């Protein structure tokens, strides 16, 4: 069967899988930002914490993805449902780029600006919210963009543990040795990745501080 014919016949199913996929990515990214940005801020503020935090995120990144799904499987609450398991593993992968860019963004703030802010009598949290975060926003967003593209790709592998998404087609196609079925998963996944890259890239450029541009 040709690729187009397969798409025409199964568009409903493909759409369903794309939505599932998108759902996995969105939840993962929300979690990864909620964990990664605060960890990045902490690592930037407390140099002695920076090594352990970045080190652990680095280690998570080096575990092969199938193996990571396997490691998480026996955990009580996480292993109980495929989507939980998938989201946990994907979040671990997404953390590194977000943490790294948050650290880079905050430590990259001109020391004279921070010094002036302190000298002006701003409190630590005022400096964070009004100076450090706005000035590192585009760098953090670049990390989120990398993490999103990464997650769209790795989420296809999450289908191996039964979490659904576009990976279903890829695994099914591999088993059937049918390229059309593989492409029914691969093409929408590639489109999602490109779109995420494009949209977040535009946002990042829009928000970059004028002086750096």
């Amino acid at each position, binding site marked *: 069967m040709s690729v187009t014919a397969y798409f025409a016949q199964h568009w409903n199913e493909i759409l369903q899988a794309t939505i599932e996929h998108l759902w996995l990515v969105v939840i993962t990214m929300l979690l990864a930002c909620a964990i990664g940005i605060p960890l990045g801020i902490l690592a930037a503020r407390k140099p002695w914490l920076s090594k352990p935090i970045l080190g652990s995120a680095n280690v998570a990144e080096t575990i092969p993805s199938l193996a990571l799904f396997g490691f998480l499987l026996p955990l009580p609450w996480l292993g109980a449902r495929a989507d939980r398991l998938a989201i946990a593993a994907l979040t671990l992968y997404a953390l590194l780029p977000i943490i790294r860019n948050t650290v880079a963004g905050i430590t990259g703030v*001109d020391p*004279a*600006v*921070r*010094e*002036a*802010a*302190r*000298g*002006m*009598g*701003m*409190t630590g949290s*005022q400096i964070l919210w009004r*100076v450090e975060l*706005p*000035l590192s926003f585009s760098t953090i967003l670049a990390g989120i963009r990398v993490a999103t593209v990464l997650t769209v790709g790795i989420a296809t592998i999450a289908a191996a543990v039964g979490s659904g998404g576009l990976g279903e087609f890829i695994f099914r196609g591999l088993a059937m040795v049918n390229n059309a079925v593989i492409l029914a998963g691969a093409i929408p996944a590639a489109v999602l990745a490109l779109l995420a890259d494009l949209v977040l890239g535009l946002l990042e450029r829009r928000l970059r*501080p*004028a*002086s*750096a541009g």
Partner: protein
Amino acid sequence: MTAETESASAPDAIIEFRDARYELPGGQVLLNHINLSVARGETLVLLGRSGAGKTTALKLINRLLDPTAGEVRVDGKTTVQWDPIALRRHIGYVIQETGLFPHYTVEQNVALVPRLERWPGGQVRTRVVELLTLVGLDPVRFLGRYPHELSGGQRQRVGLARALAADPPILLMDEPFGALDPLTRGEIRAEFRALEQRLRKTVVIVTHDTGEALELGTRLALLEAGELRGVYSPKEFLQSNEPVAAAYISQLRMVEKTERQP
């Protein structure tokens, strides 16, 4: 605090270093045995070569650093007794690199401290316009600009306006004119002198330039390798035959000579 130490304070001292020392955790001593008092309304110049400890001394005043021995008093209280935030809002701070917020307009930069102090919006706006005018920048042209759209001299003026915004009684300036070309520098310095006479603030200004020190200071404190070598009026300084002072004066003579040559 005992009553004795309170009364030992010079009558009109607004800033007072009492045997203050600052030592890095590694053991390097940046300042040692500093005894110095700054009278209300005077302009004290901290003069010394690069690395002498001038910036460190300023940071002890607004508690960006705490002395590792001795104490620094501001308005009768040691800096350690002050809440650091309250102390810093009480003191304007101008640095050489300006430290203007690149993501804030000139207006937002100057409005920073009044906003932190929750002044009503209309009052903030009026104050910003007043200050820009005071430092010689046309509000209409400059309010909406970002720091990267300004020249070095204009940035320095905005930095000064920002430091003065909430009308702090004390102003600390760390080589505020250092990064400017000689012409702009002379110009801003002269304007600052006029301004200073109008504002009657207590100013501590750091420089390594003897000419600047003599032009701006009511007194000069000479700092070398973390130690205070003497405090002079400009006249005393020029007439001093102490070798340390003499070295600075000869620097001045040399600069004057080269500047007069075409």
